[in-house]
């Protein structure tokens, strides 16, 4: 059975190597940061929508997830790198 260190190596290789792994980390982090900072502004514009963030900008949106996922594929965006969030102004009780 592979050790944790060996599995980490495999994970990094699968992501395209250490530089690519690091780039994807930073890219995802920047998109999350963009979403957090702009959340209120985005909510006014995209209430009730799924939004797709890539390189700190909205690249797709829609009310149904299937349509949004199709747009990601059509645009050729790397689905494992984009941040996808659902925006709603409705008060929802969340219990996880």
């Amino acid at each position: 059975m592979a050790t944790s260190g060996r599995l980490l190596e495999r994970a990094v290789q699968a992501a395209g190597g250490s530089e690519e792994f690091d780039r994807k980390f930073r890219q995802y982090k920047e998109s999350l940061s963009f979403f957090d900072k702009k959340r209120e502004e985005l909510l006014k514009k995209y209430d009730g929508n799924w939004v797709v963030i890539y390189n700190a900008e909205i690249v797709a949106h829609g009310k149904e997830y299937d349509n949004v996922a199709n747009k990601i594929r059509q645009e050729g965006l790397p689905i494992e790198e984009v941040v996808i969030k659902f925006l709603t102004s409705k008060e929802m009780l969340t219990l996880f």
Partner: protein
Amino acid sequence: MTAPAPAVQAYWYIPRLDRGEWVLFLVDTGASETTLNGIHALALQSHMRTRTLSPSFGIGGSCQYFGERAIIVFRDDRNQWLSRTIQRLGIQLIEQQHPSNSTVLYCPCLLGREILNDCIFNYNPSHNDVTLMFR
């Protein structure tokens, strides 16, 4: 308005599928296992093995999870990668009849106690600050 939920960015990797991605995990001390849910689980449904399904229950009801051996990778404050192997990463079963605007897709990925038990967890919601210190 409530404070943001405590969450951390981490990478999941499933060796059997040679596949992984960065996601935001909600830190959930109520979850016994780490799980991929909602849209992250949806993308993996066709690769899952039915024999690994097991039931789970919570306040919101019950559902089923596939299981896969995996590693979860974090980045520490010295820019080093830190990984934890877990024998069972839960992947939520998403029934095909769920419409694509169903609330089941909103569910976040959860970082559960099999990882959190190795950590000291600090959460300061007024500063939007979450820290995991691995022992």
